[in-house]
């Protein structure tokens, strides 16, 4: 599903450049549930953004669903994101003036699905995250956990192949963290590839594979107990 070979990424900082990813090799197959761990600044988000086509890499190869990602224009990237990828962010990134339902329906708008159909599908997904009753509430009327569940519903609504989550539980307390993780596990059980960044060991332990990043290189890549249990 995701195949990365010798990936390098630097950020220009003034005249210098900051070498963030220094040759990453990573292969994630369809249906995997992978977490990336590492200290702050180790390049986790950078990696996820490149995988999510929100950023471009400098060197190496990246194949998404078998397709080599190279010299991608914005339009193409937007279409691929819409088609293959769902995003969940630490700070939820819901649009504040849209209701939960409208937020969930938004990716379908860019897919070109009509409004009625859109809202129907969106409501269905809200139901899956048990927030059907909150459909017409604005984000600021929801708790953090609820917001993140709305965001997850939004990430799922286009039936993506891969869900990318950058510290989805970073802003949540332990109970809501568990409910969000349960959701992600559910999604994975249904066959979707899930790729989460976290720095909480308990969260990582609930995934099936942990990739540890340090100073821009992978220092370990192993299956968890949860994976072996299956």
């Amino acid at each position, binding site marked *: 599903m995701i195949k990365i070979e010798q990936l390098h990424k630097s950020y220009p900082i003034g005249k210098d450049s900051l070498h963030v990813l220094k040759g990453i090799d990573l292969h994630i197959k369809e249906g995997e549930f992978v977490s990336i761990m590492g200290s702050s600044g180790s390049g986790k988000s950078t990696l996820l*953004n490149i995988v*999510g086509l*929100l*950023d471009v890499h400098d060197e190496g190869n990246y194949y998404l669903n078998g397709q080599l990602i190279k010299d991608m224009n*914005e*339009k193409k990237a*937007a*279409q691929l*994101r*819409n*088609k293959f990828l769902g*995003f969940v*962010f*630490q*700070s939820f*990134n*819901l*649009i*504040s*003036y*849209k209701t939960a339902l*409208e937020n969930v329906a*938004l*990716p379908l*708008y*860019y*897919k070109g699905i*009509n*409004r009625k159909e859109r809202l129907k599908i969106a409501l269905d997904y809200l139901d899956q995250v048990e927030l059907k009753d909150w459909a017409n509430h604005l984000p600021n009327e929801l708790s953090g956990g609820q917001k993140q569940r709305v965001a997850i519903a*939004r990430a799922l609504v*286009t039936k993506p192949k891969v869900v990318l989550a*950058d510290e989805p539980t970073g802003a949540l307390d332990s109970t809501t963290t568990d409910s969000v993780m349960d959701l992600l596990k559910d999604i994975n059980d249904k066959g979707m590839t899930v790729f989460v960044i976290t720095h909480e060991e308990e969260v990582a332990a609930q995934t099936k594979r942990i990739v540890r990043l340090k100073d821009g290189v992978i220092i370990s890549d192993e299956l968890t107990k949860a994976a072996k249990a299956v």
Partner: protein
Amino acid sequence: MKFLFDSDTWQEIYGSIRKNKVRTAITIIGVLWGIFLLVVLLGAARGMENGFNKLFGNFATNSVFVWTQSTDTPFKGFQEGRRFKLTMNDIAVLNSEYSEEIKLLAPRNQTSNLIIHDFKSGDFRVSGDYPVLDQIQKKSLLYGRFLNENDILSTAKVAVISEDMYKQLFDKDVMPIGQYIKINSINYKVIGVYKPSNTIDFDGDCAYIPFTTFRKVYNTANKVDWMMITANEGTDIEQMEKDVLLTLKGLHKVHPEDERAFGSVNLGKEIGKITGFITGMQFLTWFVGIATLIAGVFAIGNILLITVKERTKEIGIRRALGATPKSIRQQIILESVFLTTIAGMLGIIFGSFVLFIIDSAFGQGEDAALINPTVNIPIILIAFATLIVLGTLIGLIPAHMATVVKPIEALREE
């Protein structure tokens, strides 16, 4: 173009407009003000124009008035400063020499006299005139009739008096027609009462008596005080004025270059000046209105630009969710056009409303300063189309700005 008719597009625009209420209000006010000014000023200019037209309304606008003064150049043995008068001979010569150019020619003699009726009296002007005067300067009669050819031929002692003279000389509810008034100890029968025009008027309150009667009573012999000439359709009135003056100079042994001997007013020329003034005002209006409009549209562009910056995050989210740069651009441009259009419509509505109020306040009644202050629909449509074009163009800038920021930069969490 399909996206224009897509209810989703409008849903999105409605959402973002509703969210940014203050911005929406400010931008709308800018453009609204511009088009409002345009509508109101153009309307007012139109009203003034109509007012002027009415002012000259009962005057034949292609008229020239000619009188004599005194010469400023010695000529053919005459000294400078010689005074002389127009004569009936001049009238006859002009009538025959300029039969093609001249439509109407009215020689006039005027004086002032005490006019008496019973025990009431007043000083008024008395004018010896031909019936043709009524064609050059329409008289609206309250009672009776104006002078006619018979009065001239029979040197009848009849008079047409003004409404004010009637009020001053007669008791209330007395029918003046057929009554006698005394001018210079001679009895005249009142045959008509006219209402002086509230527009341009050279006579004021004046008793019109037949030209021939005037000549006999005041012993003016062949003399004529002044004359009014109107030209036929298609005549170059300024040329006619020059030619007539030259002929008159020849008849009276006045130096052809003499500037003072004859006085003349060309009403057409004077009206031209006022019309020019109005045209100037309309031009100014357009200038001011369009400048304000452009300023308003720029304000919209500017504020959209600011909100695009404020909305980078939202735009980033949308792009992460699959919005193409094109769809983002479309949305912002459409917002711009939508705002300008709404503002334009409101401006037109308010402007028309104000014009309506102006019309009710100043545009009604006899002495209205402005008449029918209106703006043509085509002008409004042009202004409107311009707005849409400008709105699109100005929306391009923030639309472009919205897509140069990479989604990753927009989404970065700090």
